[in-house]
């Protein structure tokens, strides 16, 4: 038996080895990648020194362009140039119609659940478009950092529902990124500020991006960031400000009818510039000159404020609701962190300052703050800071429930519940002799299922016929740390079971993802094999490394027999890992895990005991 390696006390297993990890802010308008390098967190620029990557993808017959190059063609080639794709993530065709009639794209509408946009480069889903942006950031990071990435923390709006989160995670898989965690954007921003100033107390994070709005209320306490409540609107942002200005311009110009995609782009572009000008100036000139419309005029800041006020008000209503959910008063908020480019608009800053009765924090670039927080978290998660005390406790933004008789939603997990969480509820049959039950999983706050978001349908079949009301069907919802849901149903009298990992109704299936991966590779078959092998090898490395440090830390919990048995299986795995058969590696991992089952559980209990040890009553006296 080979001897287990043990490293110097107080050092990680490989102290010299800095693992490469990044934080990615996948934004509606712009995206960024950041990383911690030699103890410094920074956003990574491209070759031309640009940190922001415009979230724009252009599909051509012979390839894909991402970023500034693509953005330059947004006006002349609107059909093939996808902007603000984040707004389509996890959405169905009918949702997209609600986003407004002014979308320039041709949606392929053949009764498909996942909407696809028709482009010269083929039909693409929002997930694939986002994957292109992620790939561009990944290759920038690999180039800058000089090595393979161990993992990435990708941020999502706190208010993103299950379907939108899953779509984001799928995009990351397509881009070949190992997702350490989906992190809520406001939490990331709080990390960026919190670690900077080491403050304690309750803070609000107001995040108004290009297409989404989030408000989160967090409590900071000894490195623990506890999200108390979150709210927002996943379809409200700076784009809507531009829209309001564009509508106003059309009105001023006396334009009747339906503007074509090019004109819409042009107007939105001009409106955005006007909005940006009005951040520093009090008035700006606007000029639109096309075949259909010639207009020249001035827009004052006051006028713009009036145009955007209804939108800003909507955000403040969400703030009020979040405060109420958190059971916190305005005056208990010690700081307000501003995130997102749209918080540069002076009217937004003023209104938010008024509402919370304090001067908003703007010292970190609002465009970069999320990526910076994500990078800090990635650095911790990947294990570069082993003694780090930082911990982020997130919550679920929207209630999860099951459809019951009459089309009503019975909530199983309420919004603002800390995650991970597992909760069960019992249901029963409606008719005598019923042997199956259709379960419809929904997300949202409304009573009626039709007003909630449909997440998944699945069936529990084959339980014995009984009189109505007799069967006890226990439905268990499990939400993981990323906010992703799996559902399990079991008829208690007979033990009949069924379960699903919720693939949202508008999400991609595993097969679709695999097909996309295949088609994106030239030598599909070999590449897929190589990829699977690599994935298993990485998992094997992870398992072995974790085991070694576990034994180092808590080896005394094992009897000699147990240690021998575990060591033998560890050897087996190390052996299998050098081969090229992913199935063998997988088996070896499973066997090692079986041998370790008790040990892992014992360790978990020990660490709980350690955590609870040595607390005196006095410690709690001055808390909260």
């Amino acid at each position, binding site marked *: 038996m080979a001897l287990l390696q043990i490293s110097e006390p107080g050092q990680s297993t490989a102290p010299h080895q800095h693992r490469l990890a990044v934080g990615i802010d996948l934004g509606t308008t712009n995206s960024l990648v950041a990383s911690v390098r030699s103890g410094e967190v920074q956003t990574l620029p491209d070759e031309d020194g640009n940190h922001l990557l415009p979230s724009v993808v252009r599909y051509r017959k012979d390839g894909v362009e991402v970023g500034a190059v693509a953005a330059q063609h947004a006006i002349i080639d609107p059909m093939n140039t996808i902007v603000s794709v984040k707004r389509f993530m996890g959405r169905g065709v009918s949702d997209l119609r609600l986003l407004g009639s002014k979308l320039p794209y041709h949606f392929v509408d053949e009764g498909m659940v996942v909407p696809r946009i028709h482009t010269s480069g083929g039909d693409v889903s929002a997930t694939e478009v986002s994957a292109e942006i992620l790939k561009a950031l990944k290759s920038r990071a690999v180039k800058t950092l000089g090595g393979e990435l161990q993992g990435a923390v990708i941020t999502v709006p706190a208010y993103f529902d299950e379907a939108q989160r899953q779509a984001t995670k799928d995009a990351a898989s397509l881009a070949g990124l190992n997702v350490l965690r989906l992190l809520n954007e406001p939490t990331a921003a709080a990390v960026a500020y919190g670690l900077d100033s080491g403050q304690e107390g309750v803070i609000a994070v107001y995040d108004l991006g290009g297409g989404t709005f989030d408000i989160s209320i967090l409590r900071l306490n000894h490195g623990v960031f506890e999200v108390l409540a979150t709210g927002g609107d996943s379809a409200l942002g700076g784009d809507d400000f531009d829209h309001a200005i564009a509508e106003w311009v059309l009105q001023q110009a006396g334009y009747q009818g339906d503007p074509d995609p090019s004109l819409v782009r042009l107007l939105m572009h001009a409106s955005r510039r006007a909005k940006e000008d009005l951040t520093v100036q009090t008035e700006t000139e606007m000029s639109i000159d096309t075949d259909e419309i010639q207009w020249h005029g001035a827009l004052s800041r006051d006028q713009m404020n009036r145009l955007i006020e209804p939108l800003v008000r909507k955000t403040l209503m969400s703030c009020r609701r979040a405060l109420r959910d958190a059971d916190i008063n305005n005056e208990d908020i010690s700081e307000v962190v501003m995130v997102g480019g749209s918080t540069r608009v002076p009217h937004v800053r003023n209104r938010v300052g008024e509402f919370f009765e304090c001067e908003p924090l703007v010292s970190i670039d609002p465009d970069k703050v999320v990526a910076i927080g994500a990078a800090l978290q990635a650095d911790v998660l990947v294990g570069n800071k082993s003694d780090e005390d930082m*911990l982020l406790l997130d919550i679920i933004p929207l209630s999860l429930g099951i459809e019951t008789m009459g089309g009503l939603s019975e909530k199983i997990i309420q919004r603002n519940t800390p995650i991970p969480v597992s909760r069960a509820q019992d249901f029963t049959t409606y008719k005598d002799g019923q042997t199956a039950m259709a379960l419809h999983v929904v997300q949202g706050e409304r009573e009626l299922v039709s007003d909630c978001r449909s997440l998944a349908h699945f069936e529990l079949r084959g339980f014995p016929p009984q009189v109505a009301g007799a069967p006890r069907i226990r439905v268990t919802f499990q939400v993981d740390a990323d906010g992703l849901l799996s559902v399990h149903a079991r008829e208690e009298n007979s033990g009949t079971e069924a379960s699903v990992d919720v693939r949202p109704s508008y999400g991609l299936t595993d097969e679709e993802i695999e097909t996309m991966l295949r088609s994106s590779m030239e030598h599909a078959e070999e590449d897929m094999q190589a990829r699977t092998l690599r994935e298993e090898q990485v998992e094997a490395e992870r398992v072995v490394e974790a085991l070694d440090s576990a034994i180092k830390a808590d080896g005394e919990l094992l009897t000699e027999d147990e240690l021998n048995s575990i060591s033998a299986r560890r050897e087996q795995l190390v052996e299998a890992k050098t081969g090229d058969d992913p199935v063998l590696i997988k088996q070896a*991992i499973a066997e090692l*895990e079986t041998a370790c089952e008790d040990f892992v559980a014992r360790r978990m209990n020990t660490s709980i005991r350690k955590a609870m040890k040595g607390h005196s009553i006095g410690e709690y006296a001055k808390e909260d």
Partner: protein
Amino acid sequence: MTDALSTNYFDLFEIPVSYDVDLVRVQHRYRELQKAVHPDKYANAGAQERRISMQHTSLINQALHTLKHPVERAMYLLQLKGVDFTMDNETTMDAAFLMEQMEMREKLESVREKDDPLAELDSMSADVKSNMDVMAEVFKQAYTSGELDDAREAVRKLQFLYKAKQEITELAASIEDEII
């Protein structure tokens, strides 16, 4: 404590098994426990360890929820004494109590017509809150003296009151949103 997954929530948080809980202490222990088991602490571990970490974190979150919740905490205490609530379809038979509840509902339905509905809702909310405090006392008395049927009846009433309080808050919220 031998196994966290089979320990009762009070022992898990190392507090006395009682309706009265020190929420500050609970909150503090919650953070300590999370630091020990949260999946982020196992981001580099194998799938098995991550799964077990998720189970434990879920349990701790569930425990926190139950310990903080005025009704669920009471139900949990009774469950520890072997009272089964899962098949409980009966409701309270206390006619006077039910009458009071109905009157409150009617008041709630017509509150929008009042001059100052928010002030009205505030006072209703305060009433319900004090009724809940009274009922919690009734529960504690019955529970500690082993009168489990009485304790169960108190829990049913607490459930009513808690629901009413939530409805009042919801209504106040939507009225507030309209004014803003």
